[in-house]
C-alpha cells in the first residue's frame, strides 16, 4: 500500500463559548486518504464536515482553534507549517473547490486573471504560456467557448459555469489531492449531475485523491470509494461506499438513509426524531444516544470507540450487530388516495410577467418585455389531492404559487377557486377567500417575524379570521401547536430559539390555523436537513389525512415530490410540459424534459448511475415561439419545434405530454449522450 496522501490523526478543534468554556467542533478525528482514493464526508449541518475538510489544509475559520492532533499532507503537518510554506501547498498540490463559487470568486477580477494567478503561483510556467494554459483548463472542465469565459467577470457566469471555473482554478496547480466542500449544493439537478461526472472523470484521468464533503448521499454514491459519516464532530462510521450505503452498521447512518426519499419508491421516508447535541452538549456516552432506537444504559455512560468490523468498516457503536436490524429504506406509509372529484382550484391559460415599465420607460414610450415569465398554464387541482409542481430554477413554479396566493398579479388568464373567479391580487379578495388559501414559504427564517413569539405568530390568523381572544385564543393556539407535534411551552419562544424543523412546523401551524382548503407549499423542505425533511413530509401527510386539505407542493427535488404527490406537473421556463398521476409522470412515456430531469437524479446507491441526455445549459429567458425546451431537447425534431407550439398528447388516466413527438415514440428509451 502506498503512503497516505492525507492523514489526520487525533485532530480536535473547538472554540471558546460565551461562558469561557472550550466547546469542541471536531473531536479526535482519525482519517486517511490514499493517492487516487476518493473519500466522502457525510453529515447533517453542524456535524463538522466542512471544518474537517478545511482543517486538512491547515485552515481554521476565525474563532476556531486546534485543541490537539495533526493534519498531514504527504507526511507534513499542515499546522506546523509557516505562512509561506502553506501558501506554496494550498492551491498547488492540495486544492479546494468551495461550496459557493459565486461568492468565492473575487468579483472585481476576470476569470482569466483569477486562473492566471493560480498558474503564476503554482505552475512554474513562463508568463507567455499562461493564457494558453488557462484556455486549456477551461476546456478541460467543459466550459463552452473558453475564449469568451476568459474575459468574463464571475457574476456574468451561471452557477454551473462558476463552479466549473472554480474547478479549473483548482486544477491549475496540478494537484495531488482535491478537497470539495459541498461543490454542487444549490445547483440544479442536471447541472449537479454533469459536474459530478466531470469530477469523476478528472479524478480518474489525473489520479487525484479527493475528499468530498456533502450532505447529499446521492452525490457521495456517485463519486466516492469510501465514506466517513460524521455526527456531532465525530466520525461514527467509516467504510466502503457500498457497505455504508447498503448495509451501514451505525444506527445514525441507517436512520439517515431511511429518511431519504427515493425516486424508485413512492412511500414516504421515515423521519429520524430529535436533533444532534450542540457543541459541548454531548454527554459522557454516545453522542447519538438520545435519538437512538436501540440505546441501552451502557450507551449513556460509556463513550464508544471507533472499532473495526469484520467487513473492514469501522463503527462507533456498542451494538453494531443490533444496529444492522434497523430499517434503511422508506417504510413509511404510502400516501392514501383521498381525492374527491370536485375541483378546488382551476388555472386557465395563466400567464405572469415580472417586467413592469418604470417611470423612465413610460416617458420614453417603451413597453414591458414581450415574452412573459409564465405562459399558458392550465391545470386543475381536485379536493383532497396533492399536486406536485417540479422544475429547475427559473421554471416559474414559485411564481405560479405566489400568483395563486395573490401576491403577484397575473398578466392574463384566470384563477378559479371552486366555482368563483378569484380576484388577481390579495387586496381584492374576500376574507373568506383569503382564509381558505394559505401559503407556506421555503425558509422559515424568513417567513417568521423574528420579533414575534410563537403565540403572536399563531394568534394573527386566529384573530383575523375567527375573531378569537382571551382564553379561547390561547386554547386554540395550544391545540394547533399540538397538531404539529409541538408542546404548549413553545408559545412564548421566539423563532430564534427554535431549530430549523421546529420553525417550519410553526410556519405550517400558522397556515393550518386558518383551517384552509388549499395549502400552497413553496419548497417547504429545501432549507432543512434530510432527517428533518422526512419529519415535515410526514407531518404534512398526516395533516392532509386528518383535515382533508388539498396541497400544491412545489419542489425542485423530484424524489420529495414523488413521496407526497398524487399528481405531478412538470414546468420548464414557465411553460407546462407534462402533467398526470405521479406513477405516469415518473414512468414512460415522458416529455423529453421530464426524461432529462429524471435521468439526472442521483440515488444514494452506488449501483444506479444517472442518465445524462442533454446539456446543462442555463437559459435566461424562454424562447418567443415554439416549444420552451427546444434549445436543450435531445429529441428535437427540427424547425417545427422552433416555430409551432407543441400539442398536448393525451395518455391514460389524465396523463398529458406537450410535445411534437407522439407518445409511443416518447416511450422508447433514449441513449445517454457522451459527456
Amino acid at each position, binding site marked *: 500500500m502506498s503512503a497516505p496522501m492525507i492523514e489526520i490523526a487525533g485532530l480536535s478543534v473547538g472554540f471558546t463559548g460565551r461562558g469561557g468554556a472550550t466547546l469542541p467542533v471536531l473531536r479526535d478525528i482519525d482519517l486517511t486518504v490514499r493517492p487516487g482514493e476518493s473519500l466522502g464526508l457525510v453529515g447533517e449541518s453542524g456535524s463538522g464536515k466542512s471544518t474537517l475538510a478545511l482543517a486538512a489544509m491547515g485552515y481554521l475559520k476565525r474563532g476556531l482553534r486546534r485543541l490537539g492532533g495533526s493534519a498531514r499532507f504527504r507526511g507534513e503537518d499542515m499546522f506546523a507549517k509557516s505562512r509561506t510554506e502553506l501558501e506554496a501547498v494550498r492551491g498547488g498540490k492540495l486544492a479546494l473547490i468551495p461550496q459557493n463559487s459565486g461568492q*468565492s*470568486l*473575487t468579483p472585481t477580477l476576470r476569470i482569466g486573471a483569477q486562473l492566471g494567478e*493560480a498558474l503564476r503561483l503554482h505552475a512554474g510556467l513562463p508568463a507567455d504560456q499562461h493564457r494558453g494554459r488557462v484556455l486549456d483548463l477551461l476546456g478541460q472542465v467543459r466550459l463552452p467557448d473558453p475564449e469568451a469565459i476568459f474575459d468574463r467577470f464571475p457574476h456574468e457566469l451561471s452557477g454551473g459555469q462558476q463552479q466549473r471555473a472554480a474547478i479549473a482554478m483548482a486544477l491549475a496547480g496540478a494537484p495531488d489531492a482535491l478537497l470539495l466542500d459541498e461543490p454542487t449544493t444549490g445547483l440544479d439537478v442536471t447541472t449537479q449531475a454533469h459536474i459530478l461526472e466531470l469530477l469523476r472523470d478528472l479524478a480518474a484521468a489525473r489520479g487525484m485523491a479527493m475528499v468530498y464533503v456533502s450532505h447529499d448521499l446521492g452525490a457521495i454514491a456517485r463519486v466516492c470509494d469510501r465514506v466517513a459519516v460524521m455526527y456531532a464532530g465525530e466520525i461514527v462510521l467509516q467504510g466502503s461506499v457500498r457497505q455504508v450505503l447498503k448495509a451501514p452498521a451505525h444506527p445514525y447512518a441507517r436512520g439517515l438513509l431511511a429518511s431519504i426519499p427515493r425516486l424508485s419508491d413512492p412511500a414516504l421516508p421515515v423521519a429520524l426524531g430529535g436533533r444532534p447535541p450542540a457543541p459541548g452538549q454531548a454527554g459522557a456516552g454516545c453522542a447519538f444516544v438520545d435519538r437512538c432506537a436501540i440505546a441501552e444504559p451502557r450507551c449513556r455512560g460509556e463513550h464508544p470507540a471507533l472499532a473495526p468490523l469484520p467487513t473492514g468498516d469501522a463503527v462507533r457503536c456498542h451494538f453494531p450487530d443490533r444496529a444492522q436490524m434497523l430499517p434503511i429504506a422508506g417504510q413509511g406509509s404510502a400516501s392514501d388516495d383521498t381525492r374527491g372529484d370536485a375541483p378546488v382550484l382551476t388555472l386557465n391559460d395563466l400567464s405572469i410577467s415580472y417586467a413592469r415599465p418604470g417611470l423612465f420607460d413610460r416617458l420614453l414610450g417603451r413597453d414591458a418585455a414581450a415574452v412573459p415569465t409564465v405562459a399558458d398554464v392550465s391545470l386543475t387541482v381536485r379536493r383532497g389531492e396533492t399536486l406536485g409542481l417540479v422544475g429547475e430554477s427559473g421554471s416559474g413554479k414559485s411564481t405560479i404559487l405566489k400568483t395563486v396566493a395573490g401576491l403577484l398579479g397575473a398578466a392574463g388568464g384566470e384563477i378559479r377557486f371552486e366555482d368563483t373567479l378569484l380576484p388577481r391580487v390579495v387586496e381584492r379578495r374576500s376574507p373568506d377567500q383569503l382564509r381558505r388559501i394559505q401559503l407556506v414559504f421555503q425558509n422559515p427564517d424568513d417567513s417568521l417575524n423574528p420579533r414575534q413569539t410563537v403565540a403572536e405568530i399563531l394568534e394573527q390568523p386566529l384573530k383575523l379570521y375567527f375573531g378569537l381572544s382571551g382564553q379561547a385564543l390561547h386554547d386554540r393556539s395550544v391545540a394547533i401547536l399540538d397538531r404539529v407535534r409541538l408542546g404548549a411551552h413553545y408559545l412564548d419562544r421566539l423563532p430564534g430559539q427554535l431549530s430549523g424543523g421546529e420553525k417550519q412546523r410553526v410556519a405550517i401551524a400558522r397556515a393550518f390555523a386558518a383551517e384552509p382548503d388549499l395549502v400552497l407549499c413553496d419548497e417547504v423542505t429545501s432549507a432543512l436537513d434530510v432527517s428533518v425533511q422526512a419529519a415535515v413530509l410526514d407531518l404534512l401527510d398526516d395533516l392532509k389525512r386528518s383535515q382533508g386539505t388539498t396541497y400544491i407542493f412545489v419542489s425542485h427535488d423530484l424524489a420529495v415530490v414523488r413521496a407526497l404527490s398524487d399528481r405531478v406537473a412538470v414546468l420548464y421556463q414557465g411553460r407546462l410540459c407534462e402533467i398526470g398521476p405521479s406513477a405516469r409522470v415518473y414512468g414512460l412515456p415522458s416529455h423529453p424534459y421530464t426524461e432529462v430531469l429524471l435521468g439526472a437524479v442521483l440515488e444514494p446507491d452506488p449501483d444506479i448511475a444517472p442518465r445524462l441526455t442533454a446539456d446543462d445549459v442555463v437559459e435566461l429567458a424562454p424562447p418567443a415561439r415554439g416549444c420552451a425546451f427546444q434549445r436543450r431537447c435531445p429529441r428535437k425534431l427540427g424547425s417545427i419545434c422552433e416555430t409551432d407550439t407543441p400539442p398536448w398528447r393525451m395518455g391514460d388516466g389524465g396523463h398529458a405530454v406537450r410535445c411534437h413527438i407522439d407518445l409511443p415514440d416518447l416511450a422508447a428509451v433514449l441513449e445517454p449522450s457522451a459527456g
Partner: protein
Amino acid sequence: MLRMLLRRLFLGAVTVVIVSVIIFAGVEILPGDACTAFLEREAQGRLLENCREAQGLNRPAAERYLDWAASALRGDLGVSANGGVSIAELVGNRLKNSLLLAACALGVGVPLAIVLGVVTGLWRDRWIDLLFSTGAIFAMTIPEFVSATVLILVFSVWLGWLPGIVLTSAGAPASEFFPEILLPVIVLAMVMTAHILRMVRSSVIEVMAGDYVQMATLKGVPYWRIVFRHALPNALLPAINVVALTVAWLLGGVVVVEVVFNYPGLGRMMIDAISDRDLPVVQAIALIVATVYVVVNLTADLLTMVLNPRLRTHYMRQR
C-alpha cells in the same frame, strides 16, 4: 449603459428643479422682500410700491420663478439687494476660495483616511485600530467651532506657529492664502478623515471576512497580494459615495469654519447675506450649493458604476 446614464441625469435634473422651487418658495413665504431689505425703515407707501414696480416684484410668483430660473440657467444670478452688484461677480471669488479650501482638505483627508481605514481594518482590535478608531469618534463628533477654537488656542495663541485668522481679501490669488489656510484645512480634514476612515475600516473588515478572501487564502495567494488585488478593489468602492457626500458637505456646511477663521468663502458670504436679508444672494448661493451636491453625487454614482463590474453588467443587461 447609456440608458442608465440618461436616467441618472434626468433624476439629477429633477432634483435640481425641485430644489430651485423649494428655494424660491422658501424665500417667498418669508416676510419682506428685496425692496424692504433695501429701503429698510423707509419701506412703506409709494416708495415701496415704486421699488417693487422697478424690480418686477408685483408680478405673480410663478412668473417670477420662471424668470429667475431661466436667468439662472443662463448664468445670470441677478443683482444683490445691497448695492445692486451682479451676484455672479460677487459669488465668483467666494466660490473659488471655497473650492480652494475644499481641494486642500480633500487632498489631505482622502488619502489619509483611506490609508488609516485600511490599516485599522486589517489590524482590527489591535492598539493601532483602537487608537485611530477612538480618535475618529472624537474628530468627527466634536463641533468644528470647538476644534477650531482649541487649535487656534494651541497653535496660534500658545505656540505661535500658525496664523489663527485669515486676513487675505476675497479677490487675492490662491497662493496668498498660505499659510493662513492651514488651520481651517486641518479642522475640515479632521472631520472628513474621521468619516471616511470609519467607513473604509468597516468595509475592509467585511470584505476580509468574505468568502472570496478565504478562497484566495486557500488558493495560496500571499497575504499582501490578497489585500491589494482581491480585497481592496472591492472594499474601496463604497468609499466613493462617502467622499462625494463629504465634498458636498465641504462646500455647503463649512460656514462655521469660515466664520471662525474669517475665511472669505461662500459660507461666510451666505451668513452675511442672511443677516442682511439679502435674499437674491441667499437664493443664488443655495442654488449653487445644491447643484454642486447633486452633480458630485451623480458623478460618484456613475464612477461606482463604471468601476464595479457587477453594476456595470447589471445596467448593460437592462435594455
